[in-house]
């Protein structure tokens, strides 16, 4: 299963590879058919269709809720028109409130093949599954003829998330991702980091990196918003495993997490589903605006990954010390294992062993280069460990956001 990250520098010498050109002009690194349930009641039908089409590049995503939510609507529209997605099958029960017609129109006007199955109109479970399966099989033939296009680093959008952190995360994997991000941004790529709830205590340090004074204020207030939100919820972004792994406080976890962002200037602040307006380094503010309405900002790591993918990330760099196994639908996840003991136990799930730094077997710079080269290889089509193991985690929840402030995206 292990897709052998052998770091053959030669095949990536020119840092150029073939991607998939979408009719809206965007360039993807995977050519997926997304099967999308629009309410939990349609989940089974969508899952059956996906499992019957397993040999094709099919990805299952969906929204469980029956009540409408502008955020979920926006994220779903962004995901269905993501550059890694070539075609979309929508599966609706028929009576849920998700606006399937507008979603279908948006997908269609982006030039992607789209088909909607309404289970109530199709005549029930069995007929809906058969209908979906035959559409997906028809669609595979269309996607086989997707136009290919040259891609280089400046076409890439990469996000980073940490999950299952321990005290090694902030010493090895996160600063190594920071170095890879520095390199990506200097080559005119786009890098996104997030989780303002894990920047509590760092707002002054971070806002000094803002590209403009107005952005500095926005960065600072996004962290203050997170601190207020988590205080009202009575629980910070901190799991028991973090403490077992040697992290004592949210400030310590924050400092360790923050170094994933490298040390270049910050070009802007975006919210989930917003796309970066130019290449550079961006902070994603994932904490809802206003008082807590739907609970914790992100109930797990997968929700954060989904938001970054909705903002156009082609792939995710995921650092872990305790040993998370997650992957993601739509975008490949490169896992960077911070703790050498965890790596020894779970190496099949880990693409990069940054714990080697603690054992004196690699330097931080070497691991940073490995991550960067790994990004290029994954972009060229080499599967990550989680892709090879079939991971397709996905979760979309309820949230509320107000639009970005005027200082968030300085020209």
């Amino acid at each position, binding site marked *: 299963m292990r897709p052998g990250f052998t770091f053959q520098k030669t095949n990536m010498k020119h840092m150029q590879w073939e991607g998939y050109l979408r009719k809206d002009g965007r360039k993807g690194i995977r050519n997926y058919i997304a099967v999308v349930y629009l309410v939990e009641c349609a989940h089974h039908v969508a899952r059956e269709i996906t499992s019957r089409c397993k040999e094709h590049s099919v990805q299952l995503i969906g929204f469980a809720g029956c009540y409408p939510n502008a955020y979920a609507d926006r994220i779903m529209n962004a995901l269905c028109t993501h550059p890694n997605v070539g075609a979309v099958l929508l599966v609706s029960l028929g009576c849920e409130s998700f606006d399937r017609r507008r979603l279908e129109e948006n997908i269609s006007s982006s030039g992607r093949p789209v088909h909607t199955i309404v289970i109530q109109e199709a005549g029930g479970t069995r007929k809906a599954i058969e209908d979906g399966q035959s559409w997906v099989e028809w669609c595979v033939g269309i996607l086989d003829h997707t136009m290919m296009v040259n891609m280089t680093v400046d076409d890439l959008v990469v996000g980073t998330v940490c999950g299952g952190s321990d005290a090694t995360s902030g010493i090895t994997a996160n600063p190594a991702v920071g170095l890879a991000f520095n390199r990506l941004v200097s080559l005119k790529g786009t890098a996104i980091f997030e989780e303002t709830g894990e920047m509590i205590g760092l707002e002054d340090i971070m806002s000094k990196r803002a590209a403009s004074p107005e952005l500095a204020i926005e960065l600072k207030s996004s962290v203050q918003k997170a601190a207020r939100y988590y205080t009202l919820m009575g629980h*910070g972004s901190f799991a028991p495993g973090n403490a077992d792994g040697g992290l004592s406080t949210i400030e310590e976890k924050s400092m360790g997490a923050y170094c994933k962002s490298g040390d270049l200037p910050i070009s802007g602040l975006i919210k989930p589903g917003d796309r970066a307006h130019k290449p550079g380094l961006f902070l994603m503010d994932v904490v809802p605006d206003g008082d807590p309405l739907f609970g914790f900002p992100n109930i797990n790591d997968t929700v954060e990954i989904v938001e970054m993918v909705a903002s156009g990330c082609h792939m995710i760099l995921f650092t872990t010390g305790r040993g998370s196994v997650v992957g993601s639908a739509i975008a490949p996840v490169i896992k960077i294992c911070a703790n050498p003991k965890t790596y020894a136990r779970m190496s099949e799930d880990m693409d990069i062993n940054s714990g080697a730094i603690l054992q004196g077997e690699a330097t931080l710079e070497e691991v940073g280069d490995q991550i960067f080269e790994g990004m290029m290889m994954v972009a060229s089509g080499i599967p990550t460990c989680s892709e090879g193991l079939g991971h397709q985690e996905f979760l979309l929840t309820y949230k509320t956001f107000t639009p970005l402030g005027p200082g968030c995206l300085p020209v």
Partner: protein
Amino acid sequence: MWGRMEFYFAKPVGIGHKVACVYLEAGDKIIKYGVPIGSATKMIQMGDHVHLHNMKSDYLPTYTNTYENQITGDANPSNLTNLSPNQVS
């Protein structure tokens, strides 16, 4: 920054855990990565293991699965009015 220091531990300390390289009184800021990451809740000797049993967050309490460790910091909303990390004592 500290050069080479040698300590003898009474109990094993896990990978990535913290050890005090200075003497601290209760209330002193714990500095790591050059910034405060919380405060000492009791006296800490040089070479002591520093974790939930002797330090706490200045922002939000730290949650663990062990009942006695569940609250090791005080959530103090008054901190929210001054989020400056420059609170080094």
